[in-house]
């Protein structure tokens, strides 16, 4: 229906202004030809600070929208309207209603409404001679309008100020509208009305920046004032969806990545209309993407995810906003390794609010679900382990072919029946790990001379399909036993210097002795000095599945306790990501990072 070209209007009202003084000319624009605007004020006047009052002072002409004083505004009226208003400037608020037929009394809450803010100035209207050109030409209100696209032409603003025209008859005020060639706006010198001359197309241009130029002549004096005159074009759903590069088909291949939530393929649909991102759900519901199938398996196994974002088109130099819709074919559940099929999956994209027949576009996904095999790459594995290795020493990793590519496939690794007497090695697997980690489970077995070479069968099993594969694992023990040092602690991390570090072993050591990592760099650095069972795996910023078995193995990666001294904690507040100087830890208690050169005061009390 009819609509206002602005949401808000504002004007000043002065004490002692007489009844009949015109204040403001409000215009309306048509939604369809033949509509006739009827303006109306509802009964109440809202005084700021949410106080309302019967409106005895203002009226609007039903036919042409001229707001005027219907009663003299004397001192008593002014005080009545400013009660309880602590703002330095009193303001009252009126609602102007719009209808395409004459008003019945009760019709105040029609959807179309504009708000008028009237500032009550505690003084009489200034003499015309005292007004600046700016005040004679324009109010403080910015000249910014919005016009709906695809609507009939019409006049949407009058530049001349009714009150000035009424009060300052001997001042000549004339206007011009400065605009580039060919713009759909026209200015009428006689009525000073500005009108839009044809239907606008937002998809062609959504913003017009003109200039309102005013010339004031008083006697021999001539002054000019220019202010911006902006028109925003409001969008409506008048553009159908289309394929940006003509492609409505994509391949969706499922091989190693068979995990729920995996995006298999994406197709994009464009729309020249805007799509507000708020409220999100209603915009999503407006532009649907539905899988067209009656195969329950397909509905169970796939879903379509729709995201959209604003993009800019440049139809002819000016920039207008549009929308790029992305439809992603996503796995709705993990797919078994044994599953394999080939079919075309269709998705119907529907711009539900577009009136025309071309509101929908069909997308096609060529789905190929390939079978994958669970097998070990080579026949046997062999690792050598030093007889002096400590418990939780990490021997190596075992994993089936392409294991790092697998997602959504849960492979578990197990060591089967070694020759009974030398059972020294175990295998572990972190929640997110795709491989098995071999580690020394019982270091005392390594010391037994009869245990030279230990044979295991490793079995990898896919939890979902129960398919499994086996391979042979050989552990060769090497090296001669080192004499065990008395009184060594079980954690390398306790040592504060190289000598202390390398004199003992500890949990996780590979060759019977801890290793000193000499750091470098100033201040707090990731390359801090520390004593570790194995520089290769600790510290490496990850508290892996073997290290997490016992905090004493690698507290540098796994501690969640206090770290005293300059440091930065790792992800999830786990471990020492960076430290100052030397970092050492008392397992299951505090860790410390400090400069190594502060000599311990012997007489620490009396210094």
């Amino acid at each position, binding site marked *: 229906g009819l609509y206002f070209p602005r949401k808000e209007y504002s004007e000043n009202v002065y004490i002692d202004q007489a009844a009949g003084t015109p204040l403001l000319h409000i215009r309306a624009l048509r939604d369809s030809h033949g509509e006739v605007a009827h303006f109306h004020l*509802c009964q*109440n006047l*809202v005084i*700021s*600070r*949410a106080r*309302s009052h019967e409106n005895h002072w203002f009226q609007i002409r039903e036919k042409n929208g001229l707001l005027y004083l219907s009663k003299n505004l004397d001192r008593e009226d002014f005080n009545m309207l400013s009660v*309880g208003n*602590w*703002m*330095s400037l009193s303001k009252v608020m009126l609602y102007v209603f719009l209808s395409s037929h004459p008003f019945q009394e*009760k019709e*105040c*809450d029609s959807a179309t409404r504009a*708000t008028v803010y009237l500032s009550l100035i505690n003084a009489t209207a200034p003499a015309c001679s005292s007004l600046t*050109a*700016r005040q004679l030409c324009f109010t*403080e209100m910015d000249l*910014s309008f919005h016009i709906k696209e695809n609507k009939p032409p019409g006049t949407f603003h009058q530049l001349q100020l009714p009150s000035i025209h009424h009060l300052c008859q001997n001042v000549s005020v004339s206007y*011009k*509208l*400065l*605009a*580039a*060639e060919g713009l759909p*706006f*026209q200015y*009428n*010198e006689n009525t000073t009305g500005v009108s839009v*001359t*044809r239907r606008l197309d937002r*998809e*062609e241009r959504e913003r017009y*920046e*003109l*200039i309102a130029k005013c010339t004031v002549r008083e006697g021999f004096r001539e002054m000019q004032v*220019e*202010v*911006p005159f902006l028109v925003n074009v*409001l969008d409506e759903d008048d553009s159908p969806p*289309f394929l*940006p590069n003509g492609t409505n088909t994509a391949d969706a291949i499922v091989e190693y990545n068979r995990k729920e939530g995996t995006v298999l393929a994406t197709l994009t649909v*464009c729309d*020249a209309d805007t*799509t*507000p*991102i*708020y*409220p999100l759900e209603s915009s999503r519901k407006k532009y649907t993407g539905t899988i067209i199938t009656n195969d329950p398996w397909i509905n169970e196994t796939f879903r379509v995810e729709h995201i959209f*974002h*604003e*993009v800019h*088109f*440049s*139809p*002819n130099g000016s920039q207008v906003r549009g929308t790029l819709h992305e439809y992603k074919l996503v796995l709705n559940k993990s797919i078994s390794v044994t599953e394999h099929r080939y079919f075309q999956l269709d998705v119907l994209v529907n711009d539900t609010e577009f009136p025309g027949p071309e509101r929908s576009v069909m997308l096609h996904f060529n789905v190929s679900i390939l079978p994958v095999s669970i097998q070990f790459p080579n026949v046997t594995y062999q690792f050598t382990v030093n007889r002096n290795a400590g418990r939780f020493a990490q021997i190596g990793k075992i994993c089936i072919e392409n294991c790092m590519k697998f997602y959504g496939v849960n492979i578990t690794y197990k060591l089967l029946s070694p020759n009974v007497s030398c059972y020294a090695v175990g295998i572990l697997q972190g929640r997110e790990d795709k491989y098995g980690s071999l580690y020394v489970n019982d270091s005392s077995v390594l010391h037994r001379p009869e245990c030279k070479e230990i044979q295991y069968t490793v079995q990898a099993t896919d939890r979902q399909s129960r398919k499994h594969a086996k391979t042979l694992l050989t552990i060769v023990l090497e090296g001669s036993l080192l004499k065990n040092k008395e009184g060594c602690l079980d954690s390398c991390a306790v040592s504060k210097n190289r000598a202390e570090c390398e004199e003992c072993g500890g949990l996780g050591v590979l060759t019977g002795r801890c290793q000193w990592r000499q750091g470098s760099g100033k201040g707090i650095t990731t390359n801090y000095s520390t004593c570790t069972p194995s520089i290769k795996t600790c510290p490496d910023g990850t508290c892996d599945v073997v290290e997490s078995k016992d905090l004493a193995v690698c507290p540098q990666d796994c501690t969640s306790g206090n770290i005293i001294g300059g440091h*930065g*904690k790792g*992800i*999830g507040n786990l471990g020492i990501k960076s430290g100052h100087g030397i970092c050492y830890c008392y397992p299951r208690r505090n860790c410390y990072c400090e400069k190594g050169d502060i000599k311990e005061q012997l007489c620490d009390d009396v210094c």
Partner: protein
Amino acid sequence: AGPSAAPPAEPLGWRAPVDCVRANELCAAEAACSARYRTLRQCLAGRDRNTMLANKECQAALEVLQGSPLYECRCKRGMKKELQCLQIYWSIHLGLAEGEEFYEASPYEPVVSRLSDIFRLASIFSGTDPAGASKSNQCLDAAKACNLNDNCKRLRSGYISTCSRELPAAERCSRRKCHKALRQFFDRVPGEYTYRLLFCSCRDAACAERRRQTIISFRSPLALPFILLSLGFYLFLSPSLARSRAAGARSRLADFHANCRAAPQAPGGCPGDNFQACLGSYAGLIGFDVTPNYVDASPGGTVVSPWCSCKGSGNREEECETFLRDFTANPCLRNAIQAFGNGTDGVPAVKGPSAPATALPPKLERSPALPDAANDSNATYDTSLITTCTSVQ
């Protein structure tokens, strides 16, 4: 639990300025008032205000309540039961003002103190005259002053340790905890410390970056045009959210608009020429959904903006840009920040355009006058539209 032992009933209509919690207690203790208040709340529940005013019973309730302390009550930032106070305030004013005004009146009491009071206290506490403090880095001096005050130090550490915690990728940073800690800092630490951290003036990039990091450049640019959420459209949110969290954010935003809206007629550009009121309400936004911050670390620049954009705002782009301009191009806010940085309460030399009549906005080029009745050739639908879309980001 019911209100504390009923205070001696003041005569109705007597209105010493009270906060809305107290006003609610006064009204509850007075039979006529509490009945009318209940009626008014039912009147306002979800119905159009004008229909409400047409109803005699609602009109009567409104008349009585306009004379009760509930009508003029307001709240204080950081007061005890602030949220309850705000909910009482909005229970009346949201309905009456229809809640659609772009700029709502502030539910908070007008601020009477001035920046000069802040400067005086700041020099007392820190023993240094803020204006004369080390010329090199005002922001560093502000941090030093804070660390020497137990309350400031504790609450500053509170939000820093909460907001800068290194979390696993899967775990979203605890935005609500961080916001709460930020609110506590700015509500409970006096302006003598918080303003110096927030509005210190800088000569070099290191200082400007420190100023930007004050609220840990809590960077969570939202895909959603949060603008629309923060434009007071909390009504569209789920009712539960609309009531509790929204009351706080809506109030602080209304306060910011009330105290920082450009007032062209005032020399400093601020309503009532009170820079302190503007800075206080700006700081009051921090820790709410509209948490503004400096957009970059340019020493001279004091451009601030909330973490949101107008992308995807559809037909409300104009409103969205108006909202953003209240931060990015607000002479009152800019003058207030610069005044504080210069240690003055007066009007700094207003730099930058104050939109004199003939100054054209930079984008506009001068164009020829529009012929009175120019007819416009209909632009054919430009096929380049199709190729442009593919070159989008």
